[in-house]
């Protein structure tokens, strides 16, 4: 075993031992502990837990890589995944906390006095959450197989076992306190390599400032100017202005991600864990502080990784690296198949250009940028070990939060709420633990045999949340008269139009070649890409709901009274049973 592997084992299993210890200390005794951590989580603690819950393998591993290759276009993820918290803090969280129930479908069912609405919400929630978990499980498998060189399936199994122990044992209480620890692990793992790299390239240890500084090579050129010049020399689009399919598409994409974020049930339900309305408002702020720590470093990581990669392959203009002299990290990632070189002109050198016919870097998977970054920058082994532990913390914490969202919606909303209302608290607790175990097994199975449509469905998850859940919740709070019937029609129309657009582009259930309208032009609706369509779906939802409301008449007066009541903070108790 070499030094790197030893360090990695210590970092990974050391962090696992810590999670177990915390889970044992914070195990759940009641349904209130299990669903909302007894309602006693402070805003700062809740902020950290939301941070870990929110920042998944996608934020930790993929986002900086996306930004590295999209440049300015990658801003949609930065603004979209943070701007949603402003909407949450002002439009949803305080009122839903005041209402004081355990789950999002339960709120929808109370507000829209309808079991149908509750079931629609449960279905949206399960689809959105399950597709997310598949991604996390894949992240766990990849991290294990790359860093500990164990089999992908075994790595996945270990990850499932770890989540099972602390999520099933601890419920929301165990998950919350474990997530606080996981946040600390992942933020250190993310920022330490970034600080080193920023220091190397610019002499400034703060990555957010380093990105705007001059290079440390004495040339006096700004890092971003240098990057713009290097990529345009090779025929790529200019880094700081490349705009991802035009302004309108970026606008719709950002808006979709913002309202999708605010509508994702596993995030909203975290606001039920704080003691009062005031804490619900401020914990959204703390959450965004902890998220911003990573999200403002990510653009620096992306730009610096891109520059390092370019400088490695093309050390000076017109001068290309000999394939035989490629560095060790290049060979390591070639083994995984995520980095591929093909010597098209047979000169033994690596040509890297935007022209598909002559480009010899046939595949550079975006996901390797964060994981390979420390090695590209020649950082010490313990830093690389830390990145492995951080990636696992990000994946595990998000998976746990999603599992809780699924199990609570099945045991609390579907069983207790609709199918078997006389379930005792003890049996409900048992049921949610069983549901959670089944969800872990399903997620593990899907992680091992990912369905062909797994990649496309993450976009669908945001589209669903944006076009159905967010508008329904917002209208429920801001329009006293909005009726159940109108809201249901709105949700159905919003989801319907979003799914139609996505399936038209990517095939029904993502099976290629099944687009039902045949050869329509790609992104035909004003150039908006399917991933960005959730915002349009939300507009349709609002329009249909208000049209139906106009025709069918307002909600009954007891419901209007309910709305009056949750609009003011006074009288909020701990989240409770009916």
């Amino acid at each position, binding site marked *: 075993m070499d030094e790197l592997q030893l360090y990695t084992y210590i970092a990974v299993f050391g962090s696992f031992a810590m999670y177990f210890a915390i889970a044992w200390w914070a195990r759940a005794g009641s349904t209130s502990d299990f669903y909302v951590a007894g309602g006693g989580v402070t805003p700062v603690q809740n902020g950290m837990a939301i941070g870990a819950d929110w920042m998944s393998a996608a934020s930790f591993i993929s986002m900086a890589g996306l930004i590295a290759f999209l440049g300015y276009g990658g801003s949609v993820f930065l603004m979209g995944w943070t701007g949603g918290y402003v909407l949450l803090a002002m439009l949803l969280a305080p009122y839903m906390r005041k209402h004081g129930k355990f789950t999002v479908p339960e709120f929808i069912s109370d507000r829209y006095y309808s079991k149908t609405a509750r079931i629609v919400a449960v279905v949206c929630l399960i689809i959105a959450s399950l597709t997310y978990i598949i991604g996390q499980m894949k992240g766990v498998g990849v991290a294990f197989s790359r860093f500990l060189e164990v089999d992908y399936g075994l790595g996945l199994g270990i990850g499932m076992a770890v989540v099972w122990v602390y999520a099933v044992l601890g419920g929301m209480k165990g998950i919350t306190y474990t997530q606080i620890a996981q946040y600390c692990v992942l933020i250190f793992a993310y920022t330490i390599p970034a600080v080193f790299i920023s220091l190397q390239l610019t002499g400034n240890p703060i990555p957010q400032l380093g990105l*705007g500084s001059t290079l440390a090579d004495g040339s006096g050129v700004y890092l971003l100017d240098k990057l713009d010049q290097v990529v345009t020399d090779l025929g790529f689009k200019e880094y700081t202005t490349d705009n991802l399919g035009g302004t309108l598409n970026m606008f719709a994409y950002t808006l979709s991600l913002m309202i999708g974020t605010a509508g994702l049930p596993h995030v909203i339900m975290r606001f039920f864990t704080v003691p009062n309305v005031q804490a619900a408002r401020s914990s959204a702020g703390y959450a965004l502080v902890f998220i911003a720590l990573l999200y403002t470093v990510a653009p620096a990581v992306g730009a610096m990784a891109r520059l390092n990669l370019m400088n490695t392959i093309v050390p000076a203009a017109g001068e290309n690296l000999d394939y035989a002299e490629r560095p060790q990290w290049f060979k390591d990632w070639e083994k995984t198949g995520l980095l591929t070189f093909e010597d098209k002109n047979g000169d033994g050198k690596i040509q890297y250009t935007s022209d598909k016919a002559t480009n010899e870097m046939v595949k550079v998977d975006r996901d390797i940028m964060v994981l390979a970054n420390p090695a590209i920058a020649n950082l010490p082994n313990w830093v690389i070990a830390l990145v492995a532990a951080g990636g696992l913390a990000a994946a595990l914490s998000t998976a746990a939060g999603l599992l809780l969202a699924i199990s609570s919606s099945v045991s609390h909303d579907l069983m207790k709420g609709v199918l078997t209302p006389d379930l005792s608290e003890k049996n409900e607790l048992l049921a949610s633990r069983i549901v959670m175990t089944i969800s872990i097994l399903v997620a593990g199975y899907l992680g091992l045999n990912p369905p062909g449509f797994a990649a496309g469905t993450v976009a669908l998850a945001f589209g669903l949340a944006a076009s159905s859940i967010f508008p329904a919740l917002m209208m429920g709070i801001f329009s006293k008269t909005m009726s159940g019937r109108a809201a249901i029609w709105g949700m159905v129309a919003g989801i319907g139009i979003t799914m139609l657009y996505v399936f038209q582009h990517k095939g029904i259930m993502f099976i290629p070649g099944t687009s039902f309208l045949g050869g329509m032009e790609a992104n035909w609706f004003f150039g908006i890409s399917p991933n960005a369509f959730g915002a349009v779906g939300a507009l349709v939802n609002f329009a249909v709901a208000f049209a139906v409301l106009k025709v069918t008449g307002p909600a009954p007066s007891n419901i209007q009274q309910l709305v009056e009541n949750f609009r003011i903070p006074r009288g909020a108790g701990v989240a409770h049973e009916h």
Partner: protein
Amino acid sequence: MENNHSYWRENLRLIFICLAIWFVVSFGFGLLLVEPLNEIRLGGYKLGFWFAQQGSIYTFVALIFWYSHQMNKLDKKHNVEES
């Protein structure tokens, strides 16, 4: 009842102000006005690019805390705060 209604109106006014700022820094400065703003430099950053990848996020954080602070004051003023 009248008190609760004026509390709600003032809350709506605050939300409107916050969301206007939210829109201007992200969709305004970061997207729609990015080209003219990129003519201005902030160190090595073009200003529009900086708003899209840094500035909007900092503003979001400040907005939530400001709103939260203002609402706590409003709760007390209208005597609807939690006991």
